């Protein structure tokens, strides 16, 4: 295993505590551990897959299957500022696609962002379409990193970009 990432004691402690939430089957901790890994290292590398598999007495394929099934897990870095724009109907009716195009242009991001994040050349921004974020009454909805923003007009988007940038 190539060791791109150093596992801190603190990280391992968090992982071990999380595993205790699943007294019946350690395997249940797969998703939580993937979240922890991605929060810590930015994306799930093969090292992550193998480390988690070993931790949970699984085969790497068991974890790899998950990384590629659940869209929130990435196998490469997203931007430092990560936009997730809701693509689904209510937001689309409210201008979700226009918001997506606007952000792409103003942050100079290439790529379509339909399947996984498209990252700007400098790695600062990334954008991705996601499906309904359960806030359809206040579309278009935009997530920037872990924060939620509703009724995001292009003007509001410009302000937000400034604020995060």
């Amino acid at each position: 295993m190539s060791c791109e990432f150093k596992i801190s004691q603190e990280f391992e402690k968090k992982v071990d505590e999380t595993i205790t939430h699943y007294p019946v089957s350690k395997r249940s901790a797969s998703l939580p551990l993937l979240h922890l890994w991605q929060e810590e290292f930015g994306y799930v590398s093969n090292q992550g897959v193998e480390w988690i598999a070993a931790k949970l007495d699984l085969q790497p394929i068991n974890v790899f299957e998950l990384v590629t099934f659940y869209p929130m897990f990435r196998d490469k870095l997203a931007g430092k500022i990560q936009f997730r724009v809701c693509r689904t109907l209510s937001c689309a009716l409210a201008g979700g696609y226009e918001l997506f195009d606007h952000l792409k242009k103003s942050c100079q991001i290439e790529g379509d962002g339909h399947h996984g994040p498209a990252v700007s050349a400098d790695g600062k921004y990334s954008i991705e379409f996601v499906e309904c974020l359960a806030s359809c009454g206040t579309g278009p909805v935009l997530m920037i990193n872990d924060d939620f923003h509703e009724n995001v007009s292009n003007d509001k988007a410009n302000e937000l970009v400034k604020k995060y940038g």
Partner: protein
Amino acid sequence: MSCACKNPFNHDIATENTPMVNVQIDGEWVQVPKGMNIVAAAERFSKFIPHYCYHPKLSVVGNCRMCLIEMGTPKMDANRQPILAADGKPEIAWMPRPQIGCATQVSEGMGIRTESPLVQECRKGVMEFLLINHPLDCPICDQAGECKLQEYSFEHGQSNSRFIEEKVTKPKNVDIGERIVLDDERCIMCSRCIRFSKEFANDDVLGFTQRGSHTTLAVYPGKRLDNNYSLNTVDICPVGALTSKDFRFKMRVWFLKETKSICTGCATGCNVLVGSRENEVHRLTPRENEEVNSLWMCDQGRLGFHEIHEDNRLTTPLINGIKSDWSSALTQIAQQLHGFKPEQIAIIASARMTNEELFLLSGLRKALGGEAVLCDVIERLGQADGILRSADLNPNSNGAKLLGIANPGKLNEIRSGVSNGSIQALLIFNENANEAGLSIESLKKTALVINVGMRLNGAAHFNLPSSSFAEKRGTMINGKGRLQRLNRAIAAPDQARDDWEIIRDLKAAMGGGNGIHTVEEAFKAMAAVIPAFKDLTMSKVGDLGVELTLSSVQS
């Protein structure tokens, strides 16, 4: 019925005391064991319900939806008693939606329709879905002829495609194992191979990546599908997604002749089909026998046949390295053998020989002097894997013991006899003398060395070519005491002959004919004197073999 092999599931076998229930299949009432799944139950009445993901020996996942049928349960009255129709049979309340047969168990009064218009329409729909993203190049696919997609689409599909979109592209020609290649575009995601690896081979290496229409069968980067059962996935893959590197594109399956036989790779004696064409074996595939190997075999056993066709096959009798013919060779051997005292003669035989051969050999030994002639076989030990493979790599150790050819400890005596010169005549049957620990030097000092086998022994005065397991008939007793039949798939090359004939003729040349002209007669003669075989004939042994009582085998 018990299964000798550890299948996690046996959906097609009902335990002995399962009660029978009345079930209506396509209008006819029949009796089937309660709880059996509908696909297996219908098959008992020659109703074939097409299926992909269902496999009788694997867990049921119900993902392909090919086995959709109509199903109903008895209409009940207010007292929860079935309402009977005019014919005295229960009236059936049909479910409005089709159900999958593979995950539905039969129960009393159930109705099943396997051919109704709705069922046909379901099959047509599923077939279309399976084909839209599937390459349409059957003529170059290795599975052609054995592909369930091709077969069912002929029966249930529609001829013209309405699909005009771009197909989903996936990896092709993926090297996922030592012996296996994967074409993801042909995969229909039935997960049979994944379940087999996990549930039977205890090797959880395969999995699906991506999702939806992009779902892709894969191994984890750097891991391989290399376990000793990997080639079974090729057998159970209903399409041409998994192919055997060994067999890939070598031969169209419809040209193959298939001969029922057994694998001689170890004492398990897996039942096989030998696929051959024009005197060449192209593959072995497992043949169902619940008492032995269920539907599986190991890769080592499966690929073992290649030694048959390796170049250095001995094909004509050689006298001192010079091509000769059978009658000269046998006459000379007989003459020379007469010149030795029994204590000077030894026999190294093989537990890879058939019972008939070993039986006749014991007769030859008697003619040469009986017990005084040292005789043994070479043990071959490997590791049992807890799945199919036995620790004993000889297929017929039990036969060799029963027929007095295996005499533990004697091999050592033979070895020292040869090296100290007390043994002057050595007969070696189907074994490599070197493997037995006899050096070429010591053999060279021996006055008479006779080698019967598929390969030349450079130190032997006489080399007699014999048949491989695929070229002969006979019986063997597996590690569990089951008597099974070997069948001839191809003819032996050139002048090579079956051991039993060679031994018979040698004995005849030495002055003792025995009137045996066929393997059947050899078996009959054997059954007459060996209690374990009492009342048996080769035809009684049948395709699936018979269990001998072990005590009689060991006595």
